[in-house]
């Protein structure tokens, strides 16, 4: 059985926190650049150009893309044939977040308790999702999540009778409510099905999908395309100041659900849709 020291996990998480906050993935860069061609409003074009310039400054001068360097969401896929040694894996991930946020000049945005609200001063703890998979590797994704957009995310427990039209109405309603608050152009992750918490996780995972890559399920792909078009006809535009480019992409993930229910979760992300994946 392969052994992996959790120190390697700490090191990787540290580097990924810093990388994600300064370098947006090539597909996100491309999506912002591309969107300028579709934007018709003058102010919208101006804002999209500023976002492009912002990304350039961030990587060249090592200034975080956004000052909200997020709460660290970490997905860990552990191969069932790997033996983790050298300590507790959760502690190792949190140590990586601590080192990354401290040494990488990232903002510490986490408070110790939702009511008492004292800053933990090292951005820990992370929100960690574990998954057991086949094989002997560990795959880690670090996705720092800003709260301007997280605050505008929603979950709806729809009735089965509401059908796919109910899903569309729910997503559009969430986007309209979010408007300028979620720093458009947005990226949308939608979960349909499962239970209350599974649905929210589907939506979060949908945000990790590369821009422009659609679901392999035919009706879901159609839904993604229709929602993107409808959202971009709302008129919210870049910065919420009017225009065609309100969203860069809509990704929908589905899961079996109960005969009585149809949960729909809408996880909204801003244009700074950060995520980095590494396999150890």
């Amino acid at each position, binding site marked *: 059985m392969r052994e992996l020291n959790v120190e390697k996990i700490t090191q990787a998480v540290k580097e990924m926190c810093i990388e994600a906050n300064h370098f947006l993935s090539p597909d996100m860069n491309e999506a912002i650049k591309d969107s300028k061609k579709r934007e018709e409003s003058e*102010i919208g074009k101006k*804002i999209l150009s*500023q*976002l492009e*310039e*912002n*990304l350039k*400054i*961030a990587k060249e*001068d*090592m*200034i*975080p*893309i*956004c*000052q*909200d*360097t997020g709460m660290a969401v970490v997905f860990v896929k552990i191969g069932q044939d790997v033996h983790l040694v050298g300590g507790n894996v959760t502690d190792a991930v949190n140590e990586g977040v601590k080192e990354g946020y401290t040494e990488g*000049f*990232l*903002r*510490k*945005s986490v408070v110790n308790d939702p009511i008492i*609200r004292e*800053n933990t*001063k090292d951005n820990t703890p992370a929100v960690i999702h574990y998954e057991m998979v086949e094989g002997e590797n560990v795959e880690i994704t670090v996705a720092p999540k*800003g709260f*301007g957009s997280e*605050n505008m995310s929603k979950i709806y427990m729809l009735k089965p009778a509401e059908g796919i039209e109910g899903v569309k109405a729910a997503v559009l309603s969430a986007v309209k409510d979010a*408007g*300028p*608050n979620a*720093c458009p152009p947005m990226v949308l992750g939608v979960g349909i099905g499962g239970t209350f918490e599974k649905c929210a996780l589907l939506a979060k995972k949908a945000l990790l999908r590369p821009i422009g890559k659609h679901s392999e399920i035919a009706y879901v792909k159609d839904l993604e395309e229709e929602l993107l078009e409808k959202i971009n*006809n*709302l*008129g*919210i*535009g870049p*910065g*919420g*100041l*009017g*225009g065609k480019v309100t969203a860069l992409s809509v990704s929908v993930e589905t899961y079996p659900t109960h005969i009585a229910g149809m949960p729909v979760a809408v996880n909204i992300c*801003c*244009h*700074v849709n950060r995520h980095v994946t590494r396999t150890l």
Partner: protein
Amino acid sequence: MEKHLTLPLSKEDAESLKAGDYVYLSGEMYTARDAAHKRMDEALNDNKSLPINIEGTTIYYMGPSPAREGRPIGSAGPTTAGRMDKYTPRLLDMGLRCMIGKGKRTEAVKEAIVRNKAVYFAAVGGAGALLSKAIVSSDVVAYEDLGTEAIRKLIVKDFPVIVVIDSLGNNLYDTVMKEV
């Protein structure tokens, strides 16, 4: 319309601005976000004075990332203004003239803006690296224990903003949605 204006903004300048104007601001402003607003509100409830002179000043809703060596500040874009709405009308009635943030405000804030002939600007959300380049200096002046949420005095040069709510209560966010 593009304008270059100096902070603190004069009454005349504030009243001359119209929703949709693109403005480059130069001069001094203060940062304050959730925790600093809560603390200022508590100070006022206890009949204590505020740590900054609010009359005619500008508050930027922003909590920066830490500065690297040799730089005045880290990433420095706006946070969502709506979270400060509970505290804002009181500050406007005390003379606060400009707010810089992003996102929607309540009706109560809009009314207080009109009542006091103030102005609400938006800066581009998520452009913190770009906006940091317009900040010349940054000094913590109060509530240092709040870390990124401390009140900082900033000196800015050609800091780009857009008028969202003007002194007459015109709201750019509403206007763009009505045009669709």
